[in-house]
């Protein structure tokens, strides 16, 4: 029963691709933002936090709709990006990645900020006193110390990206092979008369992928923790 049809296969591959690209794209941004939020006080900080968290607070459909208005083929951002960078999102897998990234962003930022909060600033001081510039200190000390949080944020974001549905279907529709991720395929099967077996199969695959992803992230987390805290 776990025999996948080619269409289902493509949904699996697409989901992994979308989630992977989404997480890879937002991670640097999330790290930079978290560090700023953790270390500095600046005017408008709360506003930044609110904007970051909006995708969590609003129903996904609304977020998807806003993305459609902003980043669609007719949207101002969409046109600008297409003209200047050749990046188009509308009804493409890149759009699915954008939607997944936006939705996952708050989940990624929080744990990373927390990890930066917990990283001892005295160690950063020591690094600076030993000659590393603030930027280098960030990469050589702060970042490695925050690795457990980055991992936690990454895996949370990846899981969210794998499961993202509402914003994706609203923004880039449900096109097989292009934007029909595992979540959307599940939804589609749910509409069919004889879709139950397929629903179960796809759900099991989702679970399987999350088992692998979370399991390996746990192993990785333990390694990282040993490195960072020096103990198990």
């Amino acid at each position, binding site marked *: 029963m776990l025999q996948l049809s080619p269409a289902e296969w493509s949904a699996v591959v697409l989901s992994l691709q979308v989630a992977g690209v989404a997480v890879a794209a937002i991670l640097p941004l999330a790290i930079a933002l978290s560090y700023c939020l953790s270390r500095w006080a600046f005017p408008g900080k709360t506003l930044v936090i609110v904007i970051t968290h909006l995708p969590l607070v609003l129903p996904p459909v609304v977020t998807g709709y806003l993305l459609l208005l902003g980043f669609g083929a007719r949207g101002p951002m969409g046109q600008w990006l297409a003209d200047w960078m050749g990046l188009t999102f509308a009804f493409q897998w890149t759009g699915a990645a954008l939607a997944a990234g936006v939705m996952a962003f708050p989940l990624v930022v929080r744990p990373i900020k927390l990890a930066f909060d917990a990283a001892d600033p005295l*160690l950063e001081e020591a690094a600076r006193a*030993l000659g590393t510039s603030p930027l280098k*200190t960030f990469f050589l000390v702060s970042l490695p110390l925050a690795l457990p949080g980055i991992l936690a944020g990454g895996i949370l974001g990846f899981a969210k990206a794998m499961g993202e549905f509402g914003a994706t279907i609203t923004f880039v529709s449900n096109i097989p092979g292009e934007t029909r991720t595992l979540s959307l395929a599940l939804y589609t099967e749910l509409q069919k008369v004889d879709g139950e077996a397929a629903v179960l199969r796809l759900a099991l695959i989702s679970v399987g992928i999350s088992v692998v992803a979370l399991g390996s992230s746990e192993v990785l987390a333990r390694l990282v923790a040993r490195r960072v805290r020096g103990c198990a």
Partner: protein
Amino acid sequence: MIAVDVQGRAGNFASSVAFESAGDVTAVFGPSGCGKTTLIRMICGLHTPERGQIRVGDTLLYDQRAGLNVPAHKRRLGVVFQEPRLFPHLGVTANLRYGQWAGGRSSPLSFDDVVDLLGLGALLQRRTAFLSGGERQRVAIGRALLAGPRLLVMDEPLASLDAARKAEILPYLVALKAEIGIPMLYVSHSLSEIEQLATDMVVMTDGRVVTSGALDEVLNRLDVPGFSEGPEAGSRVKGRLIAHDEDTATGRIAFEGQQVVVPLPRPRSLGPVLLHIQAKDVIIALEPPRGLSIRNQLSGKIAALHQPAGPYVEVLVQVGAQQVRARITQLAARDLQLDVGQSVYVLIKSVALEPALG
């Protein structure tokens, strides 16, 4: 050359510190909570003063008037903090070499020398988490040494080491200043460490400098409150090692035209040496004694007498151009009827001189 004249505050604690020192090793001495660490943080650029100037060598590091504030990582200092602050995500070796691979510094000291000296050989492959307290601090010292600093700043680096390690590391720090010429700023509340290591001294209380200057002078001040009465008070004198007898493991030191014998377990080249003499180890005699295990007697004249509240009298004896400080009981002073200008003999056990050999 270190020249500091800063005012600043940390929380409710206000400090106003001014001193200048051209010496190789400037010690900062003061009781717990007097603001030593706060001063260090200002010098390292980790805490910004409110006003003033900080200069190390030819380089102005901070000048509030001129709006100058060299960032911490450009100050090229080597810092050993009060806590070891090792990087937990790096192994011992990467910690030691941090200043080189991360800070882009180069060091005149070789890695192997530092490792040998600090006894770190067995630790190199270890993670930092399971090091004992003393092991950590040794790694921290090595890390600062290998960062090739223009000034080595140490905030009570030996406090957590045992006497044997201390005795082992201290002479190297002494050698360091002589051979490699890295000046040091050395925070400690151990006078004996300071006397072995420092050339200059700053005494602090309550965020202020009580007295500062060349170590010898500061040590011989008899009336600095909270400092002169300390149990470790003493003087430091300059002499020349003129002979070394390997048989008895002793050396003979010429001092102001007279001689003293000191223990010398390890061979050492002849030449100038520093002797540290704790006031409580010094005996005053009116005539040369006989049949005593004391080897060393120096004749001199009483230069000053000071009797603070308590059982002691502080006696400063002029021996040639230098001064030796003695601490005796009031009873003894009365019995001997000591007075300024009187000729006396200063007796010092050789044994008491050993760790002071600089």
